[in-house]
């Protein structure tokens, strides 16, 4: 009994989040404005409380619970903190957008909280089954969120595609996991690692299982060639939902990759490195090249996301601690940039129109200079121009590659970043050097605007003080 108590105490953030999400779901039974507001406030409070709980559980070293299934360590703590903060910011961005379209209800918040719970579980999972559980919890919420606006054809189409492809990917992941279990006789990450380290299992079968697991990972990330859902979902979903999908799940994908590849399958380093190399090269090349041809800004950002995913995987590729830290740094920075970019798009749209064509941004510098400035900073950051933190994100990843001798891959990544700069700078050109086609007035909500300003300033501030975050990342993955 005592040990169960200790276990539950350790998993308190997850337990609390589950309770909070259920309460919010119950509130959803009542319709009306008041219940929506209540759900919103409760959700924010739940996220903040969870963050505090996460912060207060000391995780200076690894500690296990529930018979080794649940792991609390600095990495889990970091991912949980970032996830809670990100989701809170996303809710603040998304609310005015959904409110304007009279499509908001408490269910939105409940789904958001359950998705967060899925990420929390994944962050602490130390067992194939738990990883899968968290992943499915997160994914199911995302499918539902994409279809949240039920009468939208685009959204429904996107949701069904996402769901079917996601199911295939999940199936592959599960298949890979089951073969791995059959070969090693363990579901526990440490157990698998120990088994692989001491005995030569059937190599051919191991690689076979590994390939399926990598496919599951790559799909979650959206790496080429498992990226097909990304553009359709980004474009089809309402912008507020796209914002959600573009940010928090990347953290989940990152932690899943580290747990599986580094904790569980470290012994197969040489094998998964080759697989990752194919994925990263394809992602960086295709993401950047195809983005150029896009006229829809959400679709363009989807391909840009694919290329950024390529960079995150590039950090994981060398299999070194610094590489992992660089990848985490990149992930956090990407989430920050993506949140800001979609935030600008959300705030610029209004009841009648979505800001989703590139040409909609024309002349933005005149109509709303502050948004244009933030958007410019974000675009420069995504392109990796100095004076923005995007530069450091790319620099650290490239550094980790060069240290480990992946010179040609690093050169390719740099060249492709130059290609990428084109479509980011095109956005700046539209905003600053072109005249607006029609004049529109932006009336954003105060809170969202404040969040956006902080978001934009962070991108610059982290350039001046990158070390705090980098040191944190290094320490977490040390």
């Amino acid at each position, binding site marked *: 009994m005592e040990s169960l108590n200790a276990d539950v105490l350790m998993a308190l953030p997850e337990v609390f989040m589950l309770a909070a999400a259920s309460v919010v779901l119950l509130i959803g039974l009542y319709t009306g404005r008041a219940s929506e507001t209540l759900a919103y406030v409760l959700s924010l409070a739940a996220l903040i409380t969870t963050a505090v709980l996460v912060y207060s559980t000391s995780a200076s070293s690894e500690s296990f619970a529930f018979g080794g299934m649940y792991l609390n360590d600095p990495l889990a703590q970091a991912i949980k903190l970032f996830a809670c903060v990100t989701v809170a910011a996303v809710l603040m961005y998304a609310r005015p957008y959904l409110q304007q379209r009279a499509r908001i209800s408490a269910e939105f918040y409940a789904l958001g909280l359950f998705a967060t719970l899925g990420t929390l579980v994944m962050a602490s999972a130390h067992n194939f089954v738990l990883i899968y559980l968290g992943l499915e919890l997160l994914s199911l919420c995302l499918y539902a969120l994409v279809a949240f606006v039920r009468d939208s054809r685009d959204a429904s189409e996107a949701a069904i595609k996402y769901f079917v492809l996601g199911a295939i990917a999940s199936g592959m992941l599960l298949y890979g996991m089951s073969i791995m279990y059959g070969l090693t006789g363990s579901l526990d990450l440490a157990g698998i690692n120990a088994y692989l380290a001491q005995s030569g299992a059937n190599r051919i079968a191991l690689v076979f299982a590994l390939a399926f697991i990598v496919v599951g990972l790559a799909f979650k990330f959206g790496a*080429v*060639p498992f990226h097909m859902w990304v553009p359709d979902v980004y474009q089809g979903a309402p912008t507020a939902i796209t914002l959600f999908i573009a940010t928090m799940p990347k953290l989940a994908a990152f932690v899943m990759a580290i747990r599986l590849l580094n904790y569980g399958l470290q012994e197969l380093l040489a094998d998964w490195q080759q*697989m990752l190399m*194919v994925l990263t090269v394809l992602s960086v090349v295709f993401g950047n090249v*195809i983005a150029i*041809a896009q006229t829809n800004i959400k679709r363009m950002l989807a391909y840009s996301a694919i290329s950024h995913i390529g960079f995150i995987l590039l950090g994981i590729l060398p299999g070194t601690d610094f590489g992992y830290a660089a990848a985490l740094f990149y992930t956090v920075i990407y989430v920050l940039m993506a949140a800001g970019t979609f935030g600008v798009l959300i705030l610029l749209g209004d009841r009648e129109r979505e800001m989703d064509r590139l040409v909609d941004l024309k002349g933005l510098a005149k109509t709303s200079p502050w948004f244009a400035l933030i958007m410019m900073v974000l675009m420069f950051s995504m392109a990796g121009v100095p004076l923005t933190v995007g530069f*450091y994100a790319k620099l650290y990843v490239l550094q980790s590659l060069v240290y480990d001798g992946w010179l040609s891959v690093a050169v390719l990544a740099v060249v492709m970043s130059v290609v990428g700069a084109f479509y980011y700078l095109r956005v700046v050109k539209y905003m600053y050097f072109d005249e607006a086609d029609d004049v529109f007035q932006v009336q954003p909500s105060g809170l969202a605007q404040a969040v956006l300003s902080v978001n934009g300033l962070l991108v610059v501030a982290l350039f001046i003080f990158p*070390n705090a975050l980098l040191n944190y990342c290094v320490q977490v993955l040390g």
Partner: protein
Amino acid sequence: MKILCLIIVLAPLAGALIAGLSGRSIGRAGAHWVTITGVALSFLLSLVVFKQVILDPAASMSIDVYRWAVLGGLNLKVGFLIDPLTVTMMLVVTFVSLMVHIYTIGYMHDDPGYQRFFAYISLFTFSMLMLVMSNNFLQLFFGWEAVGLVSYLLIGFWYTRESAIHANLKAFLVNRVGDFGFLLGIAAVLAVFGSLDYLAVFSQAPGASGQTIAIAAGIEWPAMTVICLLLFVGAMAKSAQVPLHVWLPDSMEGPTPISALIHAATMVTAGIFMVARMSPLFEFSDVALSVILVIGALTAFFMGLVGIVQNDIKRVVAYSTLSQLGYMTVALGASAYSIAIFHLFTHAFFKALLFLAAGSVIVALHHEQDMRKMGGLRERMPVTYWTALIGTLALVGFPGFSGFFSKDAIIEAVHYSNLPGAGLAYILVTAGVFITAFYSFRLLFLTFHGESPDRGKVVGRITESPAVITVPLVLLAIPSVFAGLFIGPLVFGDYFGDSLRVLDHHGAVAELQSHYHGLGSFIVHGFQGPAVWLMFAGILSAWWVYRRQPTIADLGKRKLRLLYNVLFYKYGFDELYQGLFATGTHRVGTVCSSFGDRMLIDGLVVNGFARAVNWCSLRVRNVQSGYLYHYAFTMILGLLVLLGIRYL
């Protein structure tokens, strides 16, 4: 201490940001109050730091504030090195800057760019403090470039004037040449020592003195000589030494307070400061010291000569600045770093004073700068006259005034130097004293004495300038007289401690030290050398030519036509650079641009590549058909690829 230093640096920056970004909402008075408060705070805190360091030599320290980035084992840091050399510069910079801030209220009173101006000069103060307080080469370079940037902005402050635009472009380009050398020098430091931290580099310097570095295939030079010469190229541009001096006279297109602050007292002395700061390096290269000695002497003598034929009041002062910078450089070359800094110290006061006095005259005459149209201002502007007289006496080195001590010490130091070129340098700097006295008193006589040629029109309504202008004049006049009294501790005492390093065989200062027996005997000793008598001769000649027999000037101009023209065209440097570099570069640039850039790079590489990428992009995006079964099929293909690369 760390907090103190941070406030000293950041207070002017805060002032600059407030005045610059919200100048419109805080208004004119708001702009000058906020910047003056910031600089005054810096000055007062500098005094506190000064007191701590002077009272307790152990208070010298290197403080790392913040590690900005780590690149391949190289730490890029922001930090401060606080020692006697630094605190002296901090005091000079903040004091002169404060005076100039106050003075600007009067000088720029009617200017529409009032707030912008205050933002710039506060930004300059920040940059200059970053430069002098740095404890590593990278931050030094940051400050170096930042002061260059502000200088560029301020020379072109009146950006609607064609000549101002030309002048600031010129300053910018000439400084690029110097910065190129400077940056190479820093790179060489990094290559030889593997660090950019002052203390780490300095402590390794003695061990590296035998090292060589390949400057071209097969040619090996001593590493220290290469480093020092490259760094000195930077100093030559910043401190306007021949032949990179051409930008400084033109910089007088900027408002006068700027000429005082940046182009006389502080920024142009950055090169002098830098060499003194790097004395632990320069000491190990006799070649570099010889070059410095000769370049400085040439500048001191020949730029002074040009000053004689200038008619624009500010340009005369500008050429005198060039000449005085030459003196400081000579002192550096003679390993008399403390004397160079001492001259920098006294010069900052009396030259800022002279510039501000010239500015006072210019304001009173409604922006008339031609001395031929002036005259007889002595009675109408008594404060300006008397302070200008003090400044002039200090400049020419009248016994007892501050300039006397510093200049005489330089001449003596060169006398004792045994480097190659010291003999030539000694002759040039001694003769330079006569020239300095001549052009300085020419300025004084033409401006304040005699009668104005068109008296009724220009001089009639002239009155003394307001208090915001005259008070800084008086405050600057005080150190112009008395700053020389510090020669005992500053030059001959142990004031600078370890911050300046001199090797035993460069014994000029030590030699002087052994002859020094107090201020009085220094003055008496001065009368035994030729310099003081040459100074009196210069004053007398100026009086003779411009007061007693004004026809001599015209006669001389006609008789010495050739010499006059050589001087009037400033030895043709401008024409040479314009013809050779500007036109030549422009021509090469045109060819490169039309053929290389537009055809090859733009046409073939950039646009061609872009077209290719675009073409690919349009094709590849068709893969994204929108059909679910295509998507699923791609995933299966991907899986097969992943399996394939490990099995095949």
